[in-house]
């Protein structure tokens, strides 16, 4: 078998005894084979290696709404999906906790320029909820501790307002967990607090 024949049979995959004999005697073909195998194996590095910009989802969501594929849920359907809503709100608090923790981590280990790793994907175990909320507020205030006094005071006020909303919403939902309006209020209250954390953390990572 010569090199040309060897290469032709390469395509078929199975290695025949003639091929093996040729490989043992021909370093050029042996190098070729190992290089092609290396390239083929390393190709997996390119799987899911890139991230689309947020604009892609934004445009997609608009289309889905326009075509009626995303539809407004009817109240009866919402109460059927009660579990889903509880899952969603339960998730928000650990995420908010994780956000702050990660934010503080980034303070101490500043991200390199151009680091677009989404915050929520960092693998940090969130602490138990009740303790987390208190300690997270303290973390947030620590994060803004080095800012001008007026800004610090503002974050304190906003934090109080956000917590007041969460308390009112939690009290209301205890009376009727299936109530769509009360569910929405609670979600909105948590989203406001999440916004506060995000604004505080974004500020830090920029400097």
């Amino acid at each position, binding site marked *: 078998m010569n090199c040309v024949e060897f290469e032709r049979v*390469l395509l078929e995959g199975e290695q025949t005894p003639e091929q093996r004999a040729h490989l043992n005697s021909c370093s050029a073909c042996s190098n070729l084979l190992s290089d092609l195998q290396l*390239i083929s194996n390393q190709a997996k590095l390119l799987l899911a290696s*890139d991230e*689309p910009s947020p604009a892609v*989802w934004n445009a997609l*969501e608009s289309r889905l709404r326009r075509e009626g594929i*995303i539809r407004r*849920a009817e109240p009866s359907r919402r109460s059927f999906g009660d579990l889903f809503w509880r899952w969603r709100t339960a998730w928000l608090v650990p995420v908010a906790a994780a956000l702050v923790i990660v934010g503080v981590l980034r303070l101490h280990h500043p991200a390199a320029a151009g680091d677009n790793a989404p915050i929520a994907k960092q*693998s940090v175990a969130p602490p138990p909820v009740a303790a987390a909320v208190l300690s997270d507020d303290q973390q947030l205030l620590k994060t803004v501790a080095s800012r001008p006094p007026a800004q610090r005071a503002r974050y304190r006020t906003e934090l109080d307002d956000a917590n007041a909303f969460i308390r009112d919403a939690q009290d209301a939902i205890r009376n009727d967990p299936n109530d769509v309006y009360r569910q929405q209020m609670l979600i909105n209250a948590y989203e406001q607090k999440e916004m506060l954390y995000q604004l505080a953390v974004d500020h830090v990572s920029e400097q």
Partner: protein
Amino acid sequence: MTDAKRRQGDKLTEAEAIERAKLGDAEAFHALYDLHRRRVYSLCLRMTGNTSSAEDLTQEAFLQLFRKIGTFRGESAFSTWLHRMSVNVVLMQLRKKNLPVVPLEETMEGDEEGTVRKEPGAPDERLAGSIDRLQLQRAVDELPPGYRTIFVLHDVEGYEHNEIADMVGCSIGNSKSQLHKARLKLRELLRMNRAEKAGKK
């Protein structure tokens, strides 16, 4: 969250998300998008070579899939369905632009001299060590479109030759020979890149 727990959480979330998406729930669609966006976008980017087209095609693939979510029965994996859809969307786009999806039938028989003798420089040299992602990415971007398609579908995405032949509309033999040529071309590009770098030092 450990990787295992997150994966488990994702699986539950995907099944749940599909059911919610059938009812038109916005959060559910977003969850499905988040789970698969990197894979779909990377495929489109590899096959088209530019971010603007890749973004448009990513949007189109998800849109076509989401339009049909009501008919999804769960027999095959959701991701298989989505990725097939993405490949079809990209191939259609390449055809529309008259870009060669796969070059015309060529077999190795016509190529009497073979590859080894054509190699520039010392044929005994191996691509030592490993290839990093950026080098490979750059080399793939430089491949002619037809070679790129087959390489991406087979070596990156993991489709078999019979599946590729089906999707692309060529013969299995053609798919195999184009893949081989693509790998050879990549080898050449990677070696040239190495030589350039060595020269610069």
